[in-house]
């Protein structure tokens, strides 16, 4: 219990630091939010009133305090740029798109990486291993915008198998949603696949040299079974850690893919907001991404206990 409380305190501290950092940096952004709202040629009095209303003339800490105290109630303020919606609502609209893209991309990468890594590790140094490694590096070296364009050209424009430049929400139509998400998720998966395969392959090779693998062989277990039941779990620490980091990272940084496929995700929202000087939206979005990041990595930490019973703390 104490451990969980400690862990939660740690998470809160991280969020606190991140939120303050972002708040401070956003205020340093060039451009005056009041000008951004009013546009050019506004009356001087309107400008002063608006700055007053937005609290722009208060000291940084005061403003941060105001923002934070409403943020904890779920109110992240209002967007400055038309349609000037609630920041929370805007984020709740974009987050599921990014989250779905990231998880789908990671799942596709994982589903492909695990068998590829197993196959590579089982024949380490052999022809298959070398072919897989070379293809992974080839994939890794293709920039994602190029890969995305190629996929769009071939599968959307050419073959017409997939729609492009549209998005259907999960809540509206699940099959249509998956149909729309598959191609962009594939682009994301490609980038992660090479990394996942490489990491897991290397860890598997180390594990396969362990005595307990020899002992399992000596019991007459077939090689594929040893790979799945004996080698995979002890070899998956780096992979799981990497997946956590990737998920957190992808939530806010699938910008290129979002632009290519015209998807209403977090990445393009933040870029637009930053360009327009829409500081409440940027602050809110970054805070939420930090929250996702922190929560995902905390769950990864918890999963270590499942992966390796030795790391489980004995509760008296």
């Amino acid at each position, binding site marked *: 219990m104490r451990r969980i409380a400690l862990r939660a305190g740690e998470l809160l501290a991280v969020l606190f630091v991140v939120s303050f950092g972002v708040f401070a940096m956003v205020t340093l952004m060039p451009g005056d939010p009041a000008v951004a709202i009013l546009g050019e040629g506004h009356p001087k009095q309107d400008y002063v009133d608006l700055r007053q209303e937005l609290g722009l003339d208060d000291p940084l800490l005061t403003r941060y305090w105001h923002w934070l105290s409403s943020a904890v109630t779920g109110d992240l303020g209002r967007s400055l740029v038309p349609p000037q919606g609630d920041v929370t609502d805007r984020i709740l609209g974009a987050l599921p798109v990014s989250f779905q893209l990231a998880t789908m991309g990671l799942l596709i990468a994982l589903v492909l990486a695990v068998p590829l890594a197993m196959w590579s590790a089982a024949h380490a140094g052999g022809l298959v291993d070398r072919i897989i490694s070379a293809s992974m590096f080839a994939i890794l070296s293709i920039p994602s915008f190029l890969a995305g364009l190629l996929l769009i050209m071939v599968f959307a424009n050419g073959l017409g198998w997939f729609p492009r430049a549209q998005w259907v929400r999960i809540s509206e139509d699940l099959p249509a949603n998956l149909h729309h998400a598959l191609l962009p998720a594939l682009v994301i998966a490609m980038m992660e696949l090479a990394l996942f395969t490489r990491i897991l392959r290397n860890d598997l090779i180390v594990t396969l040299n362990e005595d307990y693998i*020899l002992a399992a062989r000596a019991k007459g277990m077939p090689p594929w079974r040893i790979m799945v039941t004996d080698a995979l779990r002890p070899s998956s620490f780096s992979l799981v850690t990497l997946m956590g980091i990737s998920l957190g990272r992808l939530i806010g940084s699938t910008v290129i893919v979002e632009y290519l496929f015209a998807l209403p995700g977090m990445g393009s929202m933040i870029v637009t907001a930053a360009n327009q000087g829409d500081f409440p939206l940027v602050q809110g979005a970054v805070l939420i991404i930090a929250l996702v990041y922190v929560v995902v990595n905390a769950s990864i930490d918890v999963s270590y206990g499942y992966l390796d019973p030795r790391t489980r703390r004995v509760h008296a």
Partner: protein
Amino acid sequence: MNDTNELVLEVADLHTVFTTPRGVMRAVDGVSMSLRAGETLGIVGESGSGKSVLGRTVMGLIADNATTAVSGSVRIGGHDVHAMKPKDRRKLWGPEVAMVFQDPMTSLNPVKRVGAHITEALRLHLGLNRKDAHERAIDLLRQVFIPEPARRMKQYPHELSGGMRQRVVIAMALACDPKLLIADEPTTALDVTVQKQILDLLASLASQRNMATILISHDLGAVEGRTDRVAVMYGGRTVETSLTSRVFARPAHPYAEALLASIPRIADAPHTVLRAIEGAPPNMLAPPGGCSFAPRCRLAQDRCREEQPQLREMSDGVRGLHAEASHLGACHFPLTEVTERQEVG
């Protein structure tokens, strides 16, 4: 059916040659041996003498591949281990032959429960269902004297002590009732106080089951009194083999003699200097010509450095007994003959 005399293991002229980046290594260089049901053979030698590789090649865990060449033959229960397809060979591992490994800290999978280690072999080889395999595993843990076996089944290896873990490894090896057990330095990683318990446990389980056992050890004390016969290995070859009592009483090979002399004895006076064997084991990548022990041998002569001695009968005294009781040694100038000559002269 009288299977007390059944020939469980026949090894003929076995070679295991590794091709390494630094050269060719003859880890096992022409070893022959045989073992009957219920019999115990000790294989002793220094680190690097090829004992472990021999054990693994006999089992077939080391087999022909890109960098390993195995020649000669190993027959376990009549099956030619190295002529079989890997898939068929795996069917021997468990019911015919099993191995107990050196370090119980590393030979159990840290993320797998104790129970799963034992039941998976039972289910695979004997086709038991989950429940029967579970019961059988509990029974096996009981046979190796693990207290509270039902509770231990659910524990992870790290929750057990070293001795307990080695008992689990033994239970795992015995799960499918093998006819031959290869114990590769089973007590090297354990506390001295636990070593004797484990060795005695292995001996009593072997005799209960009429199981043939190969006890690989660098510890002659472990082999003395617990094995019927012993083979002394040096540089990948058997340099001396006979009844254990005979080798211990009258070693023929100077290496065996030196090895025996290096055992510390409780009867020794305090501060007796431990007698180590001068020099280092041969470099297996570039073995010396002639007898591989010659560079360290106190009796070596020119012939020893030129001509490799072959295994031959060492004394007339035991001729007439059945072949397995003969006393073979690979030495041009064995100690028995030297002593006999001295007695005559």
